[in-house]
């Protein structure tokens, strides 16, 4: 259903060569709430993502090897993360602090999209996070539709990277899809119109996909 999926069918071998490896997205989720960690992990797994969940910003930095401790750094080759989703309100290092730290890094780490999750719809907070470079701001509780939308957006970004490499190598192949828009624009636009930033309302009717009766 996603544009990303269709494109990948055209360029399977090209994507395989990219550093992100297989088509599976690796998401690092950060939340101090045990309940929320369980839910976000399931949301991501059911959306076919590889998930690593940690309980604090400090742990997240340790996992990425960014905490300055040479001993804990595994080397970023084995810790390839395609997306970071972090709660805003956490004791010690907030999600905002974590966002800033990551955006201060050089090269690879700064490129990782960071999404902030918060139960509070505070415009100044949202603005601050977006200004600091957050990809999106999700209102909790996070829904399956939020995760799917995010995943599509990230996958399109990954495909575009693969595209660039493909186009550089062979002009004769048709590697420019008709529906490619700039990922950032469509994400911000879609986040403004959906539940992710301004409106916490969710669809009032949910129909089950399969009947178990």
């Amino acid at each position, binding site marked *: 259903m996603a544009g990303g999926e269709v494109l990948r069918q055209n360029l399977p071998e090209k994507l395989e060569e990219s550093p992100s490896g297989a088509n599976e997205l690796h998401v690092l989720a950060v939340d101090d709430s*045990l*309940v929320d960690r369980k839910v976000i992990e*399931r949301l991501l797994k*059911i959306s076919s993502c590889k998930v690593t969940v940690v309980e604090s910003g400090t742990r997240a930095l340790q996992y990425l090897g960014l905490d300055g401790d040479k001993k804990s750094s595994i080397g970023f080759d084995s810790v390839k993360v395609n997306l970071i989703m972090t709660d805003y309100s956490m004791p010690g290092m907030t999600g905002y602090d974590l966002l800033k730290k990551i955006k201060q890094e050089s090269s690879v780490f700064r490129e990782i999209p960071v999404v902030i999750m918060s139960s509070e719809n505070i415009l100044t907070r949202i603005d601050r996070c977006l200004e600091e470079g957050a990809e999106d701001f999700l209102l909790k*509780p996070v829904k399956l539709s939020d995760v799917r939308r995010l995943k599509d957006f990230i996958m399109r970004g990954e495909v575009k990277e693969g595209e660039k490499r493909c186009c550089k190598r062979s002009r004769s192949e048709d590697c420019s899809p008709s529906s490619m828009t700039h990922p950032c624009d469509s994400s911000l636009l879609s986040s403004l119109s959906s539940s992710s930033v301004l409106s916490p309302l969710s669809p009032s*009717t*949910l129909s*089950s996909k399969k009947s178990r009766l």
Partner: protein
Amino acid sequence: MDVGQMQRQWLDYTRSLFIEGFLDNQFLQLQQLQDENNPEFVVEVVSLFFDDSERLLKDLNFALDQQGVDFKKVDAHVHQLKGSSSSIGAQRVKNACIAFRNFCEEQNVEACLRCLQQVKQEYCLVKNKLETLFRLEQQIVAAGGSIPMMELGF
């Protein structure tokens, strides 16, 4: 009671929980995340919520019992409880927490104590309801039936 009757009972009971506001849409979201590979997901998350809530309610009791109440701490605990109740769809608990936070801002101890009672009450109610629901589910599964899927548009 045969499986069909049990399933109808389950449906009626679940519907009543939504109509009476104990649960909201988020609970349905959780059910969507449950499948054959994770058949206990909802029970697991709700159990975590029960553990978490009981801890937080104890902490709130303690914090409000102090000579000089630290309202920042009280607010932080309520914020956590509000978050986790929201995450599982326990709407009335969440709403009680929202009211509670307003009184924390006002630094009104008496009002906060009343709110705490209210939150405890709502928590006990939803805990009983959910435990009843899970018992019904166990009975259905034990009788060889399957749990119906809920639709909110009733």
